[in-house]
């Protein structure tokens, strides 16, 4: 039985040119790893590789002992990883109601999930332009948890949110971790937030000038 863990080993990735070189990272079940670094240091690229959304130039990603061979739509393990992005408005189909957005991964647990993120009945019938960023990000979190992922990757999830909504969503994620033992990778440029949220923080250095 291989150890349950999400690892990236020697990841070099980018878009034509490498943005990150030889980065290694491990997320264990129940653990929250912070990923910090200045603008342009490749935090989001690392997140996209570990979320199996972007194929690295070299290096491997392993999920619970399986080496990932395909990325994006070819990734068999994609449903084991949930992702939250910085801008909820860009990650929800504007034609969907929040109810449809939460049901998108194919769950029949919409009410239960909505409850979890504290979205009330009337809001579920609204479309993205009729709700605030905070409410939309709550729906995105419900959607990310719909398939009970083993790992959750939060890429600047709280950037658009006020202090209270930030604390609320981090609270929902912590409760989910306690219940399921999921591992979390939290990416943020807010050092104070990561100091409070993460068990340990990995720091990427500034990009070399090109």
């Amino acid at each position, binding site marked *: 039985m291989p150890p349950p863990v999400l690892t990236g080993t020697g990841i070099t990735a980018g878009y034509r040119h490498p943005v990150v070189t030889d980065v290694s990272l491990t997320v264990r079940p129940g653990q929250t790893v912070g990923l910090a670094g200045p603008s342009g240091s490749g935090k989001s690229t690392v997140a996209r590789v570990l979320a199996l959304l972007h194929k690295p130039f070299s290096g491997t990603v392993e999920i619970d002992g399986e080496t990932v061979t395909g990325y994006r739509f070819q990734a068999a393990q994609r449903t084991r990883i949930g992702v939250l992005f910085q801008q909820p408005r860009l990650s929800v189909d504007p034609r969907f109601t929040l109810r449809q957005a939460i049901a998108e991964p194919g769950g029949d647990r919409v009410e239960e999930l909505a409850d979890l993120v504290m979205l009330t009945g009337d809001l579920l019938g609204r479309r993205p332009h009729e709700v605030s960023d905070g409410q939309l990000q709550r729906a995105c979190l419900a959607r990310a948890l719909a398939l009970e992922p083993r790992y959750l990757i939060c890429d600047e999830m709280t950037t658009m949110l006020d202090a209270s909504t930030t*604390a609320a969503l981090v609270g929902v994620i912590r409760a989910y971790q306690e219940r399921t033992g999921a591992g979390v990778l939290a990416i943020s440029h807010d050092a*104070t937030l990561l100091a409070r949220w993460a068990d340990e923080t990995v720091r990427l250095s500034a990009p070399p000038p090109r």
Partner: protein
Amino acid sequence: MVNLEIDRVSVRFALKGATVEAVNDVSLRIRPGECVALVGESGCGKTVLASALLGFLPGNAETSGSARLGDVELLDATDHELATTIRGRQIGLIPQSPASHLTPVRTARSQLEEAARVLDGDAARAATRAGLAPEHLDRYPHELSGGMAQRVANALALVGDPWLLIADEPTTGLDRDLVDGLLDEFRRLVDDGHAVLLITHDLAAAHRIADRIAVMYAGRIVEVGPAHEVLGDAKHPYARGLANALPERDFLPIPGQPPLLTNLPDGCAFAPRCDQATAICEERPVLTDDEHAVACHRPC
């Protein structure tokens, strides 16, 4: 130099079968040499208020109250009047997510030079002041990082040398060093005698540069006062909850959700989420008239 006097401004949007009460009875004064931060969660009406001041509201909006800049009544001014005497000349706007407000098919330089020509400004000086090097100016918006796009937006807002700058969520998506640099730049403008209205959900940013902080909830200002008092010793339970939710403090959310702006309670809009609420909160509290004002029947 004149004051901006916002007096009992309300903004409503008429939708099919509903009215959105986006801004309710907001009064606020901004003087030259002062930075006022308007804080509150997204969707509480901050941006709508800024749009009302500049005449950027959509056709279904109804405004009431008054917003006077010197002897100009901004809410009654025609679009022509706003375009030729106010926007960019007296009030500069740094819009939310600046990258999406730049014309994608033209370089930063061409946009800045156009603004300088129309507003009789100095493009090169505005660029230098905003921290832009000449080589940055020759880039197209998609070639600019978030921090650089923000600087271009700053240069565009400042090129006409307005005395009041309205910055709408300027720190979103920037890392700490860029945020600090930007806020220091705003502070320099304020110290030069400009006024800055900083619209933000980032309490740390507000704390860093604001002289006064106004806390908005469900379209109403619930507390306004000196920055360190509002953050350090908030009187309104909502303002207190927001400050305590910061990761360096309790990191605990305020229970519940804000009310829908189509269906606001008659009394205090925060009462359903407030652990201090009693029967008296069914009556709407009035904002007190002191230096550190609060609209609450049972202030902390």
